[in-house]
């Protein structure tokens, strides 16, 4: 069975969308440029995804540079403090030297913060925050509380532990984004198999969530973990050895299938003793 992944390159014009019903409007996602009335041109290389039910179409690709977008949870580093806010860096890539964009975290953007009770962050502190404002003309703004409840919900300064980088796609997978594409793909496969009159079979790749590594690690080790959409991961545990083990497993599992990931973790745990 062949895996047909629709890889498209910038400049390609997409064929007209096959539509079950006429006159449905599609939402155009990232990586595509729309030229009216109905031409779509690819502007980022990657895999084309079409969700017929939700009527959305977008390009899926992995990159190292993070572009802030609203409501993303990210891990940022405090650079300095000004009169009413902290200036933070949003590091993104996992290359040896991370590149970074700047963001503003107001002093009062913490749960129940007042001028007197605000948490004091120093240069080099790490915060888990949500992007409350992303706009191409100004630096993004961050918040350390949940927009709905006003509670911290895990946002705030991350104390101790270790921070490392993975690719943006990996971070998204760890956060469970892969589920969407996975379901889509399974549906497509089934449809294709149905057309050919064959029985659909899972080859193991389609149903991989991409986060088996975390599931497996979580079963035997105790640690805290925060994943930022900007490709930074924070791990904390009582023992540096455990932390390092978690880090290495995650970093090495990027291109592995679910089964392989579980195998990797088992071996690592054995080595850890």
């Amino acid at each position, binding site marked *: 069975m062949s895996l047909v992944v629709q890889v498209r390159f910038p400049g390609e014009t997409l064929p007209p969308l096959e539509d079950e019903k006429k006159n449905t409007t599609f939402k155009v996602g990232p990586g595509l440029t729309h030229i009216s009335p109905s031409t779509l041109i690819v502007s980022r290389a990657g895999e084309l995804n079409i969700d017929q039910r939700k009527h959305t179409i977008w390009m899926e690709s992995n990159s190292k540079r993070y572009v802030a977008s609203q409501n993303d949870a990210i891990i940022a580093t405090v650079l300095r403090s000004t009169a009413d806010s902290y200036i933070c860096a949003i590091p993104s890539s996992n*290359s040896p*030297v991370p590149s970074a964009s700047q963001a503003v975290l107001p002093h009062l953007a913490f749960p129940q913060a007042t001028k007197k009770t605000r948490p004091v962050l120093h240069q080099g502190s790490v915060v888990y925050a949500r992007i409350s404002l992303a706009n191409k003309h100004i630096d993004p703004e961050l918040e350390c509380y949940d927009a709905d409840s006003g509670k911290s919900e895990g946002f705030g300064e991350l104390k101790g532990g270790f921070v490392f980088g993975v690719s943006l796609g990996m971070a998204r997978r760890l956060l469970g984004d892969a589920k969407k594409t996975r379901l889509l793909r399974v549906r497509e496969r089934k449809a294709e198999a149905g057309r050919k009159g064959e029985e659909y079979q899972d080859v193991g790749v389609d149903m991989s969530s991409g986060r088996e590594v975390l599931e497996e690690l979580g079963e035997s080790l105790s640690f805290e973990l925060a994943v930022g959409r900007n490709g930074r991961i924070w791990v904390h545990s009582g023992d540096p050895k455990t932390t390092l083990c978690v880090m290495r497993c995650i970093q090495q599992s990027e291109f592995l299938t679910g089964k392989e990931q579980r195998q990797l973790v088992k071996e690592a745990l054995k080595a850890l003793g």
Partner: protein
Amino acid sequence: MPREIDPTINEKSFILDALNQKLRIDGRDLDSFRELELNFGDDYGLADVQLGKTRVLARVSAEVVKPFTDRPFDGIFTITTELGPMASPAFEPGRQTEQEVLLSRLIEKAIRRSNALDTESLCIVAGQKCWQIRADVHFLSHDGALVDASCIAVVAALQHFRRPDVSVEGEKVTIHTMTERIPVPLSILHVPICVTFSFYLDGEVCLVDATLQEEQLRQGDMTITLNKFGELCQIAKAGGLAINGLNLLRCAKIALVKVGEIAATVQRRLEEDAAARVRRDNLLESKADNERA
């Protein structure tokens, strides 16, 4: 302007904690190098060194020039380095930073001033013509230990390089092409290898081949250049944390072991490359024969 971000508080304290327990982030021992990968190009004199994520390319080339008037019997050997944005976004093109000056000075002292290359053998006609050997070092990716990697790259490229053969008859100098006569290797007197030590926790811990993250956190550093005969070519400890004399001597002994290992790897890779070349040449010859037939 892209700037290197300092490591976060969390990273800093974690790495130091781990070092205190003799643990490194990438799981190495304190005194072990990352895996050294050394490849040669199709042409002579191109060496590509990978040390973990650090990658350095050295290219050696030769040309015939007039020797310096004050040294008529010596050839010319130059090493050029440039830290560009290719290696790290923190490096700007065109501007010479202090880091770059120190780096090039170190490589220069380690290789050129220790007379690794016999410049007298480069003389063709005294005061008239000599070979100028030029080693260009390109930094492709920066993850620490630039000095060590570039030193390996340069010495490997120098050993790999072959210059065209030259014959002198009276005043007449003939440079034979590579096909005309077998090109000759450079006369290498010894193979210096740099080992950089990084000091942490007031000198309690000393690391070999630190990554960029570890370099950013170190309190002091020292680069020792040795050859496998146990000759010190250069030591540079420019300030930083003060270290006990005995510790320094211990570092020197560790360096000697490392130098032996690295020199052996370089030698092995050179031999492998030479063997591969012979095989390829034979293959080409047999092909040519076939065509003729």
